[in-house]
């Protein structure tokens, strides 16, 4: 059974149709990536799954249960974590408080404290800066924090939106190392990424999305070799 299944999803912003009938699925334990140009609708799709935008039509099901149009805080409780585009860390609160807020939907205080220690071990830079305001972190550190914050809800599915945005190549490499590590731990990930080759290299499967429609799908390796993908997104 798919962990996430989306059928014919349409999202409109006023007169603009951002998603024009998207269907896809993500199985448990998979990393699935969405690639596509700016404005293709990748982030809109992520936001629809997380409950931040209401679809005009279509259906989203998570673990077999329909979640179309439910409010975002319910999504988190069902097990969908979201590291959004632009990171959106709480800039006026400390790194530690950001992580605490990531566990807002949980009430197991001891396990939360243990998880914070766990992610401090994964991201040592965050441990060093745990009392610093999140807004003063560098872009890369903020990205790490956004991922760690999303993981603090112990999600079954992690939505990871543009984790390389605005980061130096060295930092991007670190972020992708973390993504691989998460896969080893069995976290299911839906990844939106502009660096198509990096994303395809780490993904089990991938979809190409253009102007609100899925135009191609296949395994990561297949799409890496696909002429159309290479000309459009790999700069070849």
């Amino acid at each position, binding site marked *: 059974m798919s962990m996430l299944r989306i059928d014919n999803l349409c999202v409109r912003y*006023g*007169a*603009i149709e951002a998603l024009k009938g998207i269907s896809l699925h993500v199985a448990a334990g998979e990393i699935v990536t969405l690639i596509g*140009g*700016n*404005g*293709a609708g990748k982030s809109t799709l992520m936001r629809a799954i997380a409950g931040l935008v209401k679809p005009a039509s279509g259906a989203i099901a998570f673990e077999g249960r329909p979640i179309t149009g439910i409010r975002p805080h319910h999504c988190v409780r069902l097990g969908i974590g979201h590291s959004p585009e632009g990171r959106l860390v709480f800039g006026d609160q400390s790194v530690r408080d950001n992580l605490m807020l990531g566990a807002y939907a949980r009430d197991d205080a001891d396990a939360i404290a243990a998880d914070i220690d766990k992610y401090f071990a994964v991201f040592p830079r965050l441990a060093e800066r745990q009392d610093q305001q999140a*807004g*003063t*972190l*560098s*872009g890369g*550190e903020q990205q790490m924090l956004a991922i760690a914050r999303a993981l603090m809800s112990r999600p079954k599915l992690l939505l990871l939106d*543009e984790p*390389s*945005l*605005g*980061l*130096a*190549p*060295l930092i*991007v*490499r670190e972020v*992708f190392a973390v993504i691989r590590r998460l896969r080893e731990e069995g976290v299911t990930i839906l990844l939106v990424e*502009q*660096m198509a*080759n*990096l994303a395809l*290299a*780490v993904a089990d499967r991938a979809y190409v999305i*253009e*102007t609100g429609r899925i135009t191609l799908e296949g395994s990561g390796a297949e799409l*890496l070799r696909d002429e159309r993908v*290479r*000309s459009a997104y*790999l*700069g*070849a």
Partner: protein
Amino acid sequence: MGLVHGLCLALLAAALALLPTLPLNDFHLQILFTIGVNYLAAAGLNVLVGYAGQKSLGHAGLFAVGAYTAAIASVEWGLSPWLSLLLACGLGAVFGLVIALPSVRVSGPSLAMVTIGFGIVVEKIVTEWTDIFKGQAGLYGISAPSIAGRAFTNLHWVWFIGVLCILTHLMLRSLLRGRYGRAFLAVQMAEPAAQSVGISVSRYKTLAFVVSAVTCALAGAVVAQQNQYFNSDFITFNLSIFFLVVVIFGGSGSIYGPLLGSVVLTLLDAWLARWPALQHFSYGALLLFSLYLMPNGLAGALSSLFRGRPTLFDPSQADAGVSVLAARPPAGDGNALLVVSDLHKAYGGIVPVNRVGFTVSEGKVHALIGPNGAGKTTLLNLLSGHVAPDGGSIRFLGQELAGQPAHRVASLGIARTFQNLKLFGDLSALDNVLLGAHRHVGASFPAALLGLPAGRRAEARARADALALLADLGLGERAFEPARSLPYGLQRRLEIARALASRPKLLLLDEPAAGLNPQETHELGDVIKRIQAAGVTVLLIEHHMDLVMGISQHVLVLDYGALIAEGAPDAIRKNPRVVAAYLGADDDAATVAESVA
């Protein structure tokens, strides 16, 4: 529309003329007079609130300025009532300027605070400063205008205010239907976009304050004269709110909103006066509920009932104008048009533009590429003046631009588009382009206010040129549709048309192909080539490599805030640093890049 408008005015004039034949008592005449007063105050306030988008909660203060000027000029200085009226308008304008000075610097709740503060200061001054303003005791014996020595009867007052209202309406209509009305709306809808076509936001806000102050002061002066008495009890916070309610309930941003608002609310007020408790309740309920039943006021609700025939595009209109794209200047000789050096901008720990320097040469298409978040849009914002740099210099045709406001940069000849479209959504495509040409529509304020032929000619010429440009870009058929109803691809193109209409020397395009399908992207390439042929230098941010490589002569690569390479497209394609930055420096990626190359 012109015909219907003339007919309505004629009917109104006829109705006024027939008043003596109707069985009206003084109470009825007083109500008619009050409708006129409220209309005067609201009509100007509508320019400020509905057009320029500045909510004022202190216009009772300006009403007081007019009333007390008329009163004191008459009682203390013995000026003629006519002169007093003029003086009231003049002082109203001065105080409009005074209140605008702090107001244009703030927005939202702070603006509300400044205007409330102004209203209260005036209220307290006229209450407490009894030597001059006589406080609650009031000023008696204010002389009223007369014609040929005959004092005004109540009927004459209604006629008089009727004439004032019609004149005010005609002037404001003429003003708002031309470049000034458009500029006010532009300021309200999207300040950055208004600045990008050379509109000084603070200047237009100030102008709107002054216009509203004059009509409000005139209303106050007429009330003082008709009453022949005025005291400080007139001036309350509630009066300020009432004026605002007339505008918003009637329909702010519609020329007829204040009329509807003043008629309905004055009548309602008079009718409910019998039950004072109910009167206040209904006032509160009106404020609370009318906004969600009729978000655009009475005028909005009525216009959605009677939607007029849409204006149709007539190609012959466009033939009369000249498209900006039709220009064929001598080819640019590659001189440096824009020289950027050491440009720097930091936001906290993030440095989107880190000591960047480059040159833009005349006549060429330049592309600025780099991964998302590399700082490209910030760089563009620095060039257009929408963001002030922390350091460095931007020289354009020998002038320093760093630190100049955006509208000034635009007026020097740099136009731009926005990554997240900033069209004036409720305005037609044509109006958007006319706003682009704002600086070139040569109608002066008096010409626009009085509807002088010079103003109308300038407007007609600009309109024809704008239609020609729209037709040239394949948007002619959609010229009269609201920008927000256009399909996304055409909205992107309309934004380019708006920028071009300002006749720039340098055009900055921020991801013009974002969200376009392959066909539209291809057409965009052609449009950019035509822009270049028309002698406009182009700097574009873009992701679509095909597009970038196909149309640009010079490519700049920005990564992590720093310029890492520049040169001809072919050289850039092969530059290993660019490949690494663009495709990711991961080992896997490096292998991929090699296999692809």
